[in-house]
């Protein structure tokens, strides 16, 4: 994977496949670290499966449940001196509160830290392919956090217009772009006042 946004897309697809109604994608950017959390309320995994999912050689084609996605994320994080943490509650054990949470920590000043890439394109792809699933995206960074909650959009759109209608997708793309841009402009303004 060339960009972290592609790892995010890949892991979030697992959440959708696990039958999640809501997938939360949370990014926290600090001075030298970036934490990416993907949390879902899907079917979850048993402790046995959970132990094996980051091992690319454990699963076989006929029985595989996850594949190469998590090993690739783990590799990317560990290459920067970071790590991946996985927790999961299977639906069979806890019918009220089940799901999986993947947290990856990256040291952003490490030379092997991949670029973030186009995270808006990742969200567009997820929403386009899974209009019935809800996504909560929140990127905490210096300045104002960037946020998108498809549950709020759904309230406005009602049941008439699916989230993956082209006009809605265009609106979402622009909505995210503006949030990232406003933040940048503010920062530039601040820098100017400082000098």
């Amino acid at each position, binding site marked *: 994977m060339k960009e972290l946004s592609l790892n995010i897309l890949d892991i979030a697809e697992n959440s959708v496949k696990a039958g999640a109604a809501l997938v939360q994608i949370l990014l926290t950017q600090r001075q030298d670290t970036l934490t990416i959390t993907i949390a879902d309320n899907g079917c979850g995994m048993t402790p046995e499966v959970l132990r094996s999912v980051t091992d690319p050689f454990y699963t076989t084609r006929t029985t595989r449940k996850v594949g190469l996605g998590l090993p690739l994320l783990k590799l990317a994080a560990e290459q920067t001196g970071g790590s991946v943490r996985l927790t999961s509650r299977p639906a069979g054990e806890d019918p009220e509160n089940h799901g999986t949470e993947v947290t990856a920590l990256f040291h952003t000043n490490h030379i092997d830290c991949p670029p973030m890439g186009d995270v808006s394109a990742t969200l567009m792809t997820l929403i386009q*392919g899974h209009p019935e699933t809800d996504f909560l995206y929140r990127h905490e960074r210096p300045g104002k956090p960037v946020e998108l909650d498809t549950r709020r959009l759904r309230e406005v759109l009602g049941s008439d217009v699916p989230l993956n209608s082209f006009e*809605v997708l265009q609106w979402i793309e622009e909505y995210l772009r503006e949030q990232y841009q406003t933040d940048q402009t503010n920062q530039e303004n601040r820098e100017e006042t400082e000098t």
Partner: protein
Amino acid sequence: MKSLAELAEIRERMKDKIALREGNNEIRIVVGMATCGIAAGARPVLNAFVEGVNAQGLEDHVTVTQTGCIGICQYEPVVEVFQAGKDKVTYVKMTAEKAARVISEHIKGGKVVEEYTITYAKKA
């Protein structure tokens, strides 16, 4: 700044159109979006199909969807085109540029772009 009010306008504009559109999908374009596809560049390919179909005004009878790994990872990004009464066409090693050509020549023009198909790739 984009507002939720604008989204409500989109709803008003579209709700009648959507009802008409249902059950009218003659062509289905399916993009592989598993780990193998994503790593090979499927995301911009999907985007190119979604945008291209709408830019050409084909959205009333063409849908673009996603699927998982279909087992030919070495040929990713893979795109399949399904059309009632016709054989499935499998395009391999796709790019956004190739997608634009598939839309104008195949989806719009009805002529398969042979050199992007898996049959052609296997012969070469």
